[in-house]
Each structure stands twice: as C-alpha cells, then as structure tokens.
C-alpha cells in the first residue's frame, strides 16, 4: 500500500468513527443547525426590516452560509482536544497508521457535517425568501467553494485543538476568533458602511471574498447601500476566495501534522 492510499484509507476509518460519534451525540448537530437558524431569524426579522426587507433577507443568507461552515470548525477543535484528553490520540499514535489520518479523518467528518448543515440552511433560506437565481453550474460551484473554505477553516481548528490545554479552553478558543472574522466582513452588512480601517479589513477579509463569490454565483443582489466597494478583492471574489482557501490549507495542514507528531496526551 502506498503512503497516500494508506493515509486515505485510515482517514476514512477515523471519519467513520467521528460520524458515529456525531450520530450518537445530538448536541453536535444541534449546535451546527439551531444556532445558524437563530441567526437567520434574528437578522432577517429583527434587523431586516430596517436594512432592506426581502432583498436584505436574500443578501443575508450567503453570510449565514459562510458563518455556519466556519463555526463548524469548532467541532474539529473540540473533537481533537477531547481525544487528546481521553488518551485516544495516544492509542492512535501507537498504531501503525498514517500520521495524517487522525487529522484528515476529523476535518473530513466535519466536512460531512458542514454539507448537512448547508442543506438545512438552504431550506431555511428558501423559507425566508432566498432563491438561487444563477445557473445550476454556478450554484454547484458556490456550494463547492463553501465546502472548500469550511475544510480550510477546519485545519486552523485542528491546530487550535491540538494546542488547547483543556476542552473548556478549546470550547471558547475555537469560537472566539471567528466572531470578529465573521462580523468584520460583508456577512451581515455591506463593508462600504464601515469606518476606514475596519472597511479595509472587511474588504480583504477572506470571509468577505467567499461571501461575495457565493452571492455572485447564486445571483443574490445586495440591497441599496450594501453593494461591495469596488476594488480587487470584490472584482475577483471567486479567485480571491479560492486563493485564500488554498493558502490556509498550505499553511495549516503541515503545521497541524507537525504538531500532531509532537503532541502528548494530558
């Protein structure tokens, strides 16, 4: 067996195990689905009226999609930290299995959870008036881009999970950094209304790139005043979103694998 096929095979086994865990532990899906639905309802109906009504609700959904899949990376953080604490990582590291498999298995199972969450969020979006107005191919591309970005975020989560001193810390550390990243973007309001420095951050934030790409690909128009400020990141949203995801993977996959080799169960 080559290194690659063994790595994929072992990752598949670890992902199977993680998904059994998800199925038997309803909290996970609860957090992945209920929380974003709450956000949809809050923004669509509490702020939505003031921000543009029906058109705002359609604008909002792309932001919710990206927030949902990126917040799912917290499962990688907590899952890996849990395995470390319980000595399961020790067991895995003493087995003749691929060094990549525990991490790839974890990020892969989270990808499955993300896909499921996206499906549910799409149905929820349809209920509040969001529609796919672009071509079928563009819609497929939008979903693939979302999953790729979610996968990349999970690898950042992997490094955090392996570095966290306890599950409690992992729980808050896994989400904390995502709040500023998802809010200082065009997820909920157009970046154009933000003050100078914040606007620059929002414009160049990879979250904004993914959100903008998804809006473009689904054909969701921004309400008046929320259109992205012109500039390279907005004009090349899909390219920038792809590049960001690839750079995140290129940096965090090797970092996480290196950390995994050295990590010790507590």
């Amino acid at each position, binding site marked *: 067996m080559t290194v690659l096929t063994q790595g994929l095979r072992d990752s598949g086994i670890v992902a199977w195990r993680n998904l059994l*865990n998800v199925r038997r532990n309803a909290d996970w899906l609860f957090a992945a689905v209920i929380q974003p639905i709450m956000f949809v309802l809050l923004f669509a109906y509490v702020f939505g009226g003031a921000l543009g009504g029906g058109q705002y609700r359609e604008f909002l959904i792309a932001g919710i999609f990206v927030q949902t899949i990126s917040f799912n990376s917290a499962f990688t953080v907590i899952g890996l930290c849990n395995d470390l604490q319980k000595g399961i990582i*020790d*067991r*895995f*590291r*003493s*087995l*003749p299995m691929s060094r990549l498999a525990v991490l790839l298995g974890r990020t892969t199972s989270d990808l499955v959870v993300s896909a499921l969450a996206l499906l549910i969020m799409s149905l929820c979006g349809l209920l509040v008036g969001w529609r796919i107005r672009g071509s079928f191919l563009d819609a497929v591309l939008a979903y693939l881009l979302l999953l790729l970005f979610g996968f990349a975020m999970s690898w950042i989560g992997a490094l955090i999970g392996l570095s966290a001193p306890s599950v409690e810390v992992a729980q808050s550390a896994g989400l904390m950094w995502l709040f500023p990243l998802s809010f200082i973007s065009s997820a909920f309001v157009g970046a154009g209304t933000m003050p100078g420095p914040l606007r620059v951050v929002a414009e160049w934030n990879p979250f904004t790139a993914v959100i903008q790409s998804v809006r473009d690909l689904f054909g969701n128009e921004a309400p008046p005043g929320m259109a992205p400020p012109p500039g390279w990141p907005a004009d090349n949203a899909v390219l920038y979103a792809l590049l960001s995801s690839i750079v995140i993977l290129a940096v965090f996959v090797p970092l996480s694998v290196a950390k995994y080799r050295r990590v010790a*169960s507590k």
Partner: protein
Amino acid sequence: MPTDTAVRAEALVKTFGSTRALDGIDLEIPTGTVLGLLGPNGAGKTTAVRILTTLLRPDSGRAWVAGHDVLAEPDKVRRSIGLSGQYAAVDENLTGFENLYMVGRLYGMNKPDARTRATELINRFRLTDAAARPSKTYSGGMRRRLDLAGALVAEPQVVLLDEPTTGLDPRGRLDTWEVIGELVADGATVLLTTQYLEEADQLADTILVIDHGKVIASGTADQLKAEVGGERLEIVVAEESEVEATTRVLAEVGSAEPTVDRHGKRVQVLVDAGPKSLVEALRRLDVENVTVLDVGLHRPTLDDVFLSLTGHATEETA
C-alpha cells in the same frame, strides 16, 4: 540485538524543562517474560513506556522493541506492540465491538478479519452482553478490559501496560491480573508499570525499581526481599498515648527506624533476629506497661524493599 531479548533500552534520558524524568535507564526484557517497572508517581515509568511505544523521543539513549530501533523504525515497532495506557483510551460513544473493530482496521486488517478479531476479543474479555452498547455505559473495570483488549487486537509480540489497574476496585484488579496471566501463558512479552508492589510481586518475573528517573534496584521479588534482609515486626497497641513508648522500644530492638501509624496505633520496624527480637520487644513493652493488642512478624514485602531502597514510602503507603 539477540532474538531472545524482546525489549532493550540503553541509557535513556528525557528531560522536561528542569525535571529529569529519565536519568539514564537501562532495561532488558527476555522474550516471553514479564518485567515490572515499579515506582511511585513521577518516577519516570510513563515516560519510559512512551519512549518504548514511539510516542516520545528520548533526549539521548537508544531502545529496541521486537528487534526494531524505536527511533529509526518507529512504524515497525508500532506493528509489533500493543499499548494500554493509564486511562482507558476507549471512545465512549462507540460500542465495545466498534472500538475493537476500529483498532483492527487501523492495524491494517480487512473488514471481515477485523470483525472476527473484535468478536473473539469481546468474548474472551467477557464483554459479550455489553458488546452492542456504547462504552460510556460500561463500569470502570469493563472499560479497562476493553482498553486492554484494544492493545491485543493485532496479537502483538510485546505488550506494554501502563498502570493497568490504577483506579480499579479489587475485583477489577483481579480480573486484570487474570488477563495478564493469560497473555503471558500465550507467549507474549509484557512490560508492566505499577505503583502497587503487590502487583509486581504477583505478575512480574523481574522487577525494576525506579525512582527519580533512575533504576535503584532490580531482580526477582525474592531477590529484592532478600536484599532488605530480616523480618518486619509489627505491634498494635491499645491507646494512642502508648505509641510513643512503643516507638522508642522498637527503635532499640529493630535494625532501622520504625515507621509509625499514629492513627492506627501501629508501629513497625525491621528486625534482624526474628522471634528473638519479638520476645525482646514484648518484654520491654511489658516493663513500660504498654498494652499490646496485636503482634506480628512478617517476611519483608516489596513495600519494605522500597522503603529501605529509597528512604521514603511509595505513594499508597505514604
């Protein structure tokens, strides 16, 4: 490395910050025997196991397991070993069967083989009735059995058990001892760490006593006991106020400092002259008007060995 040696380590050193967890450990386990690594908490037992199982790299020194260098050929070492750690490393949301099946698959077995092996182990470890239940519903002893079974999935040549009975009730301990006995009967080589002197005495062919990362004694249980020499005289008195006088008397009669359990009104000391020392002690206690409730003369236990080697008791008797 000769083929009749299953595990061998030379001058292993590992430091964490300013702590020298291992300070030049040598060990050798002949194939098919059990080595007991005995020492208190923090003696370096777990560090030694982690190095031998490739989880940790030593700062210096070398080690071979089943003929493979742990530093140069970690993957071959992993194929030859089974590890059961200090805490039962089982996935609580998976059933007992699924836990073992997963480990089998990760050892490279195909699906039918992994299934067959998991079923075999479930039956052997008396988990048949619980096989289809998530392991979080298991008792501590059952979880430990499941973890131990996980270490044996690939029928490893060398099994490393890090404190396999810590935290178990007496029944769970006896259960685990039985399993380890069967393992050895099947020809496996076992390295076992423990803080329980009784456990090393029961299970190990050779015992290595370590403290502060150094080997301070080695040999069979009998050799270690002989090293301490003499016997242990134990006196239990009626009143706590009599403990002081008793301690004074035993210090004169004995060959070492007495150990005092004030609360239990119990004083012990090592003696050279056996029954003669016993008679002498009782005579003097009578002169002092001490009421003796119980008296005993014991062959030294490994507790005594440890005390006389290190000058301090093990964790459980401290």
